[in-house]
């Protein structure tokens, strides 16, 4: 084991130690409780980045049994030694994990630093940092682990820390309910994932009886067995995807993510935008050969992804809560990633995952800074004109918005364009067409957000306006540090078009699947089809931005457009149905209420009645019959010897008499 590989367990161990120490003595540390967790994550960031760069640049040794994948692997211990079923605990850093590692540790570190400022007045300060470290531990375990079972444990742990952090202000009823909702909806997906793991376990042992849950080995075995698998690969892949749907909030399990915004804003940025919700994308990408062996499952992935993208984008267009707009935007972008996975453009999905992690983390932290500035107001209708009061937040938020809208040369442009271009070239025209529309909608809702928040006149109370001030530097510095990759990352990883570093990094991981899907590596034609597609998506983004400017105003680069609320009302009145549908989130909460609370409640009530009257009735009936019989038979026991003797005599006579009668025949 090399020196480098021996550092891998520290990536998981340090946040765990940070969590345990802070949980044990954090209350006594009070306002200095952040030191241990932040230093732990700083170290993790340092080690993680070094390892990731080592793996990505190819200076790491080749992974065992692989011809072209560089990486580090470390075996820790045998968890379950049960004859021919053995679960090993080990960590692997391959290029895919390395990409995730960069996103998770960098954004994790910045969010930790930001939280020092954001949570400074909260009485649960130490508890917050303990939970954050617990989350970092779980997330790193999730991306590093090489066994399905350990991934599942980490999967549940991130769900737990998400639950704890959404319900951080548990005295607030809505926060407690949102935490419960997130937990329960996630369970639905987790059942699928658990069944998927069981299917993999069954399949791997079907022929030779040797079960394995090692990710790489099990997938190789499943592919080698082909049609001999007792549970078809198609079903296995879909079960795994069900888990991904829950964690990454894809339709119809998307309802928990917007409500998760009840948690503190750094949590929304870290867990519900940049890292945990990406776990589903990571899972599908990790199992890419499995999905590629059952291409029809990938079509379902693409369909659900792109449907979630347009559904969430349509809702984001009318929401008034600044964090909810961003939450629906996250849903929409995750939909993009799944669409990319579905069409077989795995690299594009991971590329978008990385860029999205940075600019969405930036936008969320920016929105936190805005909320902080206007004294815990989240309703954009009571904001406006903030650009003049909080210039740093404004500038970084503007960069984030431009990045997500897909304006070149910012990060979002490259990754989103890669998704759209790949889906068009791989023959999924419908995915491209819907994604194209979503790109326009994305630009529109982001600049609606900018217009309502930063431009025009302040619409809140006067006394708040006078007290608005920029957040402390412990909060603005992370914003600036996130803005830098939001600008540069696309160019750094995506250029030159079609063969940027991200392609060469991830090529070894996805190569096999792409061959299985029959994707010929097409050349990039800047002056042909690709150029046209880029122009089209930039154009649609520009149209979205322009419409938003016309309706909600703009003050940028000397452009002074006034907001026109009367025009907004007119448009929403004309598209009354669509407007109401979007505002009410297409009534999905109401549908779930009807299905599970009303109808499900009735069924549950009926079952409860059955249980109480029939099941309990049988049990109680047996008891009651016994008691009644005893009470009746008690009268026979008179306690008089003669009665008993009479009984004996009569019995004797009956027996002797019947013997005589029978024997006499």
């Amino acid at each position, binding site marked *: 084991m090399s020196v480098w590989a021996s550092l891998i367990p520290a990536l998981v161990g340090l946040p765990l130690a940070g969590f345990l120490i802070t949980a044990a003595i954090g209350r006594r540390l009070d306002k200095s409780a952040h030191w241990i967790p932040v230093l732990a994550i700083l170290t993790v960031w340092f080690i993680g980045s070094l390892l990731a760069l080592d793996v990505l640049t190819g200076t790491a040794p080749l992974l065992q049994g692989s011809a072209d994948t560089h990486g580090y692997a470390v075996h820790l211990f045998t968890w379950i030694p049960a004859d021919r079923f053995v679960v090993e605990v080990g960590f692997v850093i391959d290029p895919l994990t390395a990409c995730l590692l960069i996103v998770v540790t960098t954004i994790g570190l910045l969010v930790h630093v930001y939280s020092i400022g954001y949570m400074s007045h909260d009485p649960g300060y130490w508890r917050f940092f303990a939970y954050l470290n617990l989350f970092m531990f779980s997330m790193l375990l999730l991306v590093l682990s090489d066994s399905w079972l350990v991934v599942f444990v980490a999967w549940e742990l991130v769900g737990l820390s998400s639950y704890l952090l959404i319900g951080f202000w548990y005295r607030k009823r809505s926060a407690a309910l949102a935490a419960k909702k997130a937990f329960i909806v996630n369970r639905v997906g987790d059942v699928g994932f658990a069944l998927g793991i069981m299917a993999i376990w069954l399949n791997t042992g079907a022929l030779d009886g040797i079960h394995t849950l090692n990710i790489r080995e099990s997938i190789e075995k499943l592919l080698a067995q082909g049609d001999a698998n007792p549970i078809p690969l198609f079903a296995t892949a879909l079960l795994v995807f069900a888990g991904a749907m829950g964690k990454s909030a894809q339709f119809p399990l998307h309802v928990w993510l917007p409500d998760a915004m009840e948690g503190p804003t750094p949590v929304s940025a870290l867990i519900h935008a940049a890292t945990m919700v990406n776990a589903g994308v990571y899972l599908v990408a990790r199992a890419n050969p499995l999905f590629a062996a059952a291409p029809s499952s990938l079509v379902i992935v693409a369909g659900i992804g792109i449907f979630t993208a347009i559904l969430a984008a349509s809702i984001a267009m009318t929401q008034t809560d600044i964090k909810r707009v961003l939450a629906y935007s996250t849903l929409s972008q995750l939909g993009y990633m799944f669409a990319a996975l579905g069409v077989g453009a795995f690299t594009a999905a991971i590329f978008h995952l990385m860029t999205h992690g940075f600019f969405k983390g930036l936008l969320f932290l920016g929105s936190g800074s805005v909320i902080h500035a206007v004294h815990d107001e989240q309703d954009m209708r009571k904001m406006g004109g903030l650009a003049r009061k909080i210039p740093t937040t404004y500038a970084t938020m503007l960069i984030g918005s431009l990045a997500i809208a897909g304006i070149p040369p910012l990060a979002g442009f490259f990754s989103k364009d890669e998704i759209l271009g790949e889906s068009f070239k791989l023959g999924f025209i419908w995915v491209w067409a819907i994604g194209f529309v979503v790109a326009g909608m994305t630009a529109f809702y982001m600049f609606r957000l900018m217009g309502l928040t930063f431009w025009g006149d302040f619409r809140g109370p006067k006394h708040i306006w006078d007290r608005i001030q920029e957040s402390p530097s412990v909060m603005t510095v992370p914003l600036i540090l996130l803005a830098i990759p939001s600008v540069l990352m696309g160019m750094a990883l995506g250029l030159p078009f079609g063969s940027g570093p991200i392609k060469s990094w991830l090529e070894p991981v996805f190569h096999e699947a792409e061959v299985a899907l029959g994707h010929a590596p097409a050349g990039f034609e800047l002056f042909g089809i690709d150029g046209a597609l880029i122009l089209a998506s930039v154009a649609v983004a520009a149209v979205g931005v322009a419409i938003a400017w016309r309706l909600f105003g703009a003050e940028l680069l000397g452009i002074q457009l006034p907001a026109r609320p009367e025009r907004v009302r007119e448009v929403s009145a004309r598209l009354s149905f669509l407007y109401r549908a979007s505002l009410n989130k297409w009534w999905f909460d109401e549908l779930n209420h009807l299905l599970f609370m009303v109808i499900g409640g009735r069924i549950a009530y009926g079952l409860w009645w059955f249980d109480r009257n029939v099941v309990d009735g049988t049990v109680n009936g047996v008891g009651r019959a016994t008691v009644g019989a005893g009470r009746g038979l008690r009268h026979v026991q*008179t306690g008089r*010897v003669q009665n008993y003797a009479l009984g004996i*005599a009569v019995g004797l006579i009956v027996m002797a008499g019947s013997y005589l009668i029978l024997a006499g025949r």
Partner: protein
Amino acid sequence: MSNSLDAYLVLSGILFAIGSFGFLARRNAISMLMSIELMINAVNLAIVAFGAFIPELGAQASVIALMVIAVAAAEATVGLAIVIAIYRNKKTPLVDEYDAMRQ
């Protein structure tokens, strides 16, 4: 008739019936013990009668009869001891007032 087995068996049956009637009908514990003795002796009579009239049984019947007499003596001893013990507690020889085991 006096020389036939049936006569002895009929006498034995009558004695047994008187004994059981006494056991069931009398309330006095001492009388009940006496009824038991009557029943035992009825049975003994039947055994000895069988022994006298059926040559194959031979001396075995007499042995059984002696055995029964011994058991009857033991039974009477134990029974009387119990009755006296109860009598000391209850101050009555009447069995229908011995109801401590009913509860």
